[in-house]
């Protein structure tokens, strides 16, 4: 009898996320076979961690339509927070990372509550202010953070084993290097980030966010508590940044205040807008492009800034929706 119940539309969409995730998983699994050396791994690890942050930030910027010009502060809070918890309180790295993320969530909740009422330019101003203050504090509190000289970070330890990028490990009889283990961690982090984001987008929270992006007032009229949802997604995106920051610290073994800088916040938001707002895979592509550009410009180090600025302007002028949504629309048009 119950066989006759038709599938609800949301159920259909929920299953539609698996093809994309499968492709992502396959790419992440194949990439190690294409990587020639540790430098390639290093690049892929950094791309995967940054893409994780961008996927989280995209929830806020792309789906909820709220801008943040200070997300590097949360990233740095995760990195410095977990490093200091290990150093000062002798926590092991994984609990330190979780505790730092909880701390960042509380912080984001506290600052998000008053500032998310702001709109447009005032919100960008407020988030920018938070980011710059965080960078100044990290630079000045050098007794704790090492100041501009940076802070050494203890390596990650898993199941009692210290994980060093220089070490070699045994995985079910196969010898792998520390860098390869780190690639696995970073790729896993990215995959889980995407999975969580896609689930979130399909949840009531995701629908509420899209509604408030369309028109906040219409969403309110329809009974959506927009303030609550905005705050929630702000906190979630901050936690994404915090976790990625912690991992980055453990991986690199050394962090500097640069990760909290305005420039880094700009880089993060640029990735989201460049790859495509409200496109989870788009921002991953955005990360790949943005982090690979400097690799192609190594011969023209002098011109790096000029070309970077020019590319940013040109893409934004001609593809204001970002690369992936614009191209997807073009393909759809041709197909139909």
């Amino acid at each position, binding site marked *: 009898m119950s066989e006759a119940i038709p599938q609800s539309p949301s159920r259909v969409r929920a299953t539609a996320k698996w093809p994309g995730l499968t492709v992502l998983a396959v790419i992440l699994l194949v990439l190690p076979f294409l990587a020639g050396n540790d430098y390639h791994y290093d690049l892929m690890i950094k791309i995967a961690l940054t893409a994780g942050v961008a996927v989280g930030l995209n929830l806020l910027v792309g789906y909820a339509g709220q801008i943040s010009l200070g997300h590097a502060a949360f990233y740095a809070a995760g990195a410095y927070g977990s490093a200091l918890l290990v150093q000062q309180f002798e926590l092991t790295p994984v609990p330190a990372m979780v505790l730092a993320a909880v701390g960042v969530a509380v912080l984001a909740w506290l600052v998000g509550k008053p500032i998310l009422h702001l709109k447009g330019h005032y919100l960008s101003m407020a988030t920018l202010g938070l980011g710059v203050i965080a960078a100044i504090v990290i630079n000045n509190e050098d007794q704790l953070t090492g100041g501009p000289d940076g802070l050494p970070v203890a390596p990650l330890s898993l199941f009692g084993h210290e994980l060093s990028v220089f070490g070699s490990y045994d995985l079910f009889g196969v010898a792998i290097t520390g860098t390869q283990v780190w690639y696995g961690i970073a790729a896993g982090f990215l995959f889980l980030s995407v999975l969580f984001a896609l689930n979130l987008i399909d949840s009531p929270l995701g629908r509420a966010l899209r509604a408030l992006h369309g028109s906040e007032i219409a969403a309110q009229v329809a009974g959506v508590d927009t303030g609550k949802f905005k705050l929630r997604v702000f906190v979630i995106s901050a936690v994404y940044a915090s976790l990625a920051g912690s991992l980055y610290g453990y991986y690199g073994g050394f962090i500097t205040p640069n990760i909290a800088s305005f420039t880094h916040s700009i880089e993060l938001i*640029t990735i989201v807008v460049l790859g495509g707002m409200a496109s989870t895979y788009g921002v991953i592509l955005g990360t790949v492009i943005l982090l690979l550009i400097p690799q192609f410009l190594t011969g023209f180090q002098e011109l790096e800034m000029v070309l970077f600025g020019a590319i940013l302007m040109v893409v934004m002028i001609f593809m204001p929706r970002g690369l992936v949504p614009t191209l997807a629309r073009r393909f759809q048009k041709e197909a139909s």
Partner: protein
Amino acid sequence: MFSEFFQFTFSGVTLGAIYALVALGFTLIYNASHVINFAQGEFLMIGGMGTVVLMDAGVPIYFAIPLAIAMAGVAGILLHRLAIAPAKNADVVTLIIITIGASIFLRGLAQVFWGKEYHALPNFSATESINLGGAILLTQSLWILGIAAVLVTALGLFFTRTTLGKALLATSMNKDAASLMGIKTGAILMMAFGISAVIGAAAGVIVAPITLTSYDIGIMLGLKGFIAAAIGGLGSSTGAILGGLLLGLAEAYTAGYISSDYKDAVPFVIILAILFFLPNGLLGSRAVERV
């Protein structure tokens, strides 16, 4: 004690005058086109660095300054023509990224052609400082205050007394209505960017003898100018000037009495406090948003 206070106040007002000029540039562009121009700080850099480079090439200072300012004006007009006008229907975020792209581009060009070194412009007067009741005042500060006052007055007269100025005001109030009245709004917007760049470049030149100039001075100065404009309520010229002076004073007192390490944080703390309690800025109009 008092001379110390007087000295901090004086340097605060000097700094504030610079912030006020940057904020005026922001306000002008914001009013005309609703764009927050994150490249505003680069106009200051072009003014300061342009003068330095021209003087190095043997151009006397009284030609180098106007040439550098004109160069910034052209950059402002090009910014509007090539980057802002083609993206007229873009989102706020997209426009912000475009102006950020422009600022990186300009900074990059300056770095390639003008180098990364810090430069100082000579003082405008031969005597560097004067002693007034125990306080040491830089003569350059007097130049800054004087020139800022002249620029602000000239801008005020431009808006109230000239047809072009009134056309710009009309365009910022309602672009469609203005174009129906026969105002060429495209040209007016371009002019707004040009004037804004000129004001910024002038600020960059007069402050260079005190703070030094280099290819990357635009970031912090631009951000602080943006804050000053936001304190004043984004769009109010009087607000921009008051916001600038408030920031300058707060920064100078913090550096003098509390901690010079944290003086750069002061503007950002102030703006957060204001946004928490007065979401429309000090002098912002409580505009009713249409849905």
